[in-house]
C-alpha cells in the first residue's frame, strides 16, 4: 500500500508543480525606484472610433539610469494577446521595434509598439492598450526590478449597426460625428478664389490701361493700327499724320513741334533711337499741312513711310530699339 501512496504523492507533486508554474512565471517583481527611470509616451491622437482591424501606434521613451539596464528579453513579443480575467482582450501587439541610445549615466530606449484591434461589438466599447511591464537588471547584481508603462484607454466601435438600435441609448459621446471630407472642396475654392482675384486684377488693368498686356496698346500701337486702316489718298495721308501727332502729344503730355523735339526726347529718352525719323516726320507734316515747298526725301510713298515710322515708335514705346535707317 505504501507504493501507491508514494506514487500518489509524486503525481500530486507533479500536478502541483505544473499548476504553480504559470504563477511562478507571472511573479510580480518589485518596482524599480522611480528615480532610476522616466517614461514619456506618445499615444495615438484619437482615442475613439477604432474598428476591428485598425492599428494603434504608440511610442514609449524609456530612460533608464545606471546602474539599471533594460532586459531586452522582457519586452513584449509580437502576437502576444493580453487577457483579462481569462478573456482575450482583442487587442494584439502587431509589431515592436526599439531604438537604443546609450550615455555614460543612462540609456534611452525608444520603443515603438503597434497594436491591432481584433474585436468588434454592437456598440462602442472601452478598450485598453495594456501598460506593458518590462524588467530591469541591476548591473553587477542579480537583483531584477520591473517598471510598468502607462496604459492607454480608448474605445472601439462596431463596424455596423445590427438590428434596431435606439440611437439615444447607443450614441457614444466618444465618437465625433463623421463628416464628409471637404479638403478637396476647400482646395478647389482656394484655387478658384485665386483665379478670380487674378482675373479681377487683370480686368482692372485692362479697363484701366486699355491694353491686354503691359507695354501693349500704347499710343503708337493704336496709331499704327489706325494708320493701317486709313485710305491711301491725300486725305488719308493727312489723317495719318494727324493720328501720329496725337500719339506724340499723348506720350509727351504736351504739343510737340519741330522746335521742341529735343525737349521731347529729353523727357522720353526711350524714343531717342528714332530721332532722325521724328525729325523727318515733322518735315513731312510741315510739307503736308503748312509749306508744300519743304524739302523732303522719304525713299518710299509717304503713307508707307508713316506706317514704318509708327512701327518704330511703337517699338520704342515697348522698350525695344528699332532698326532706324
Amino acid at each position, binding site marked *: 500500500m505504501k507504493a501507491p501512496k508514494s506514487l500518489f504523492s509524486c503525481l500530486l507533486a507533479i500536478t502541483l508543480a505544473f499548476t504553480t508554474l504559470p504563477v511562478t512565471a507571472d511573479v510580480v517583481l518589485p518596482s524599480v525606484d522611480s528615480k532610476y527611470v522616466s517614461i514619456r509616451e506618445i499615444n495615438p491622437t484619437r482615442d475613439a472610433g477604432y474598428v476591428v482591424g485598425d492599428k494603434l501606434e504608440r511610442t514609449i521613451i524609456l530612460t533608464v539610469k545606471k546602474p539599471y539596464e533594460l532586459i531586452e528579453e522582457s519586452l513584449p513579443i509580437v502576437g502576444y494577446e493580453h487577457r483579462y480575467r481569462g478573456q482575450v482582450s482583442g487587442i494584439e501587439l502587431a509589431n515592436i521595434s526599439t531604438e537604443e541610445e546609450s550615455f555614460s549615466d543612462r540609456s534611452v530606449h525608444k520603443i515603438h509598439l503597434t497594436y491591432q484591434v481584433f474585436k468588434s461589438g454592437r456598440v462602442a466599447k472601452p478598450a485598453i492598450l495594456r501598460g506593458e511591464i518590462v524588467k530591469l537588471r541591476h548591473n553587477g547584481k542579480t537583483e531584477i526590478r520591473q517598471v510598468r508603462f502607462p496604459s492607454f484607454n480608448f474605445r472601439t466601435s462596431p463596424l455596423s449597426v445590427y438590428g434596431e438600435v435606439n440611437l439615444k441609448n447607443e450614441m457614444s459621446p466618444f465618437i465625433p460625428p463623421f463628416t464628409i471630407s471637404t479638403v478637396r472642396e476647400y482646395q478647389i475654392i482656394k484655387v478658384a478664389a485665386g483665379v478670380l482675384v487674378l482675373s479681377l486684377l487683370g480686368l482692372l488693368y485692362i479697363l484701366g490701361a486699355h491694353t491686354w498686356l503691359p507695354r501693349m496698346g500704347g499710343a503708337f500701337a493704336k496709331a499704327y493700327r489706325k494708320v493701317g486702316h486709313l485710305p491711301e489718298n491725300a486725305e488719308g495721308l493727312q489723317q495719318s499724320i494727324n493720328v501720329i*501727332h496725337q500719339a506724340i502729344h499723348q506720350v509727351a503730355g504736351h504739343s510737340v*513741334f519741330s522746335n521742341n523735339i529735343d525737349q521731347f526726347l529729353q523727357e522720353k529718352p526711350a524714343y531717342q533711337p528714332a530721332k532722325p525719323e521724328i525729325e523727318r516726320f515733322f518735315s513731312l507734316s510741315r510739307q503736308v499741312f*503748312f509749306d508744300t*515747298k519743304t524739302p523732303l526725301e522719304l525713299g518710299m510713298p509717304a503713307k508707307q513711310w508713316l506706317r514704318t515710322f509708327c512701327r518704330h515708335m511703337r517699338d520704342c514705346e515697348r522698350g525695344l530699339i528699332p532698326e532706324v535707317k
Partner: protein
Amino acid sequence: MHDQQLADWRAQALKLESEVNKVVVGQQNPVRLITIAVFARGHVLLEGDVGVGKTTLLRAFTRGIGGGYQRIEGTIDLMPNDLVYHTYLGEDGKPHVSPGPLLMSGQDLSIFFFNEINRARPQVHSLMLRVMAERTLTAFNKEHYFPHMLVFADRNQVEREETFDIPSAARDRFMMEIPIVVPPAHDIMESLIFDTRFHDVDQLITNVEQDILKFDQLNSFAKVIQENITASPALRKYALNLWLATKDPLAYGIKVSNVDMKRLVLSGASPRGMGMLLRAARVNAWLNERDAVVPEDIHAVFHETIAHRLVFSPVYEMRRTEIAREMLSGIVNAVAAP
C-alpha cells in the same frame, strides 16, 4: 520778281541784324524780334532793368534803318505839346515857335524813340496812342503825316515812383513788348565790364553801318512780305485756336500756379493783336527763307506779341510778367497743330 526782291531785302535785313549784334552783344533774340517788328511795321516796347542796353539797342537799329530820328525823354512834367512844338524867346525878343520832336523831321520821320515812356503822364500816352495808331497829328491847323514812323519805346519796371502804367489800349498799339535781360554767358558779362568800347555808347553806335535799309521803301516792302508769305488752312486753324485759348484758357485745360483761372483773364488777345502776331510770324518765315508760315514762326513771336495785350484781373497785375509767360507757354503746349 518778288522772289528776287524778297531775297535782296532778306540779305539787307540779316546785315542789319549782324551790324546791331556787333554793338549789342548777347541779345540775338531781341535783335531778331526787333528786325521782325521793323519789317512788320510794328511799334516796339522794350522792357527791362536799368542799364541793360535797351537804349543802345534801339539807337543801333535807328542808325541802321536810316531816315529821320527823333528822341524824347519821358518825365513826369512832360506835356503833349512838348512833343509837338517848342516856344522860346528869340534874339529879337519876340516869342517864337519851333516844331517839336514829332514834327521836326516831317514825313521822313523814321524812328521816334521814347525813352522811359512810363515816366510820362497819361495825356502824353494819349497823344502817342493816336500817333502810333494813325501816324497822323493835327497841329498848327494842319494835318501832319508820318507814314514811315515806328515808335521804339522803353520802360523800366523796377522803379514805380513817379511812373504811370501804360494803359492796355496804349500797350495794344505796340506790336511787341520785348524783355531785355543781361546775357547770362560769363564771357559776355566780362567783356561788358572790361571792354572799353562798350563804355562810350555814342562811339559804339557809330560802328553800325548807317542807312542799311531804305526806310522809305519799308512800307511797300512790308506789304510784299505779307502778300507773298502764305498761311495754310491748318495754320489758320491753329492761330484761331491760340486766340481762343488766350480768351478762355480754362477751356483748353491751361493752369497757372497759384492763380484762379476763372478770374484771371478779363480780356484775351485783341483782333489787332492776333493780326500783328500773324504779320510778325510771316516776317519770321521770310527771314527763315520760307514762303509759308509754320507753327514755329508763330511760336517765335507769340510771347512778345501777345503777353502785353492780355488784360488780367487787377489782383494779378503785379505778377503780370510771370503769369503771362506761364499762361502763354501753357497755351503753346496745349494747343496742337495740325
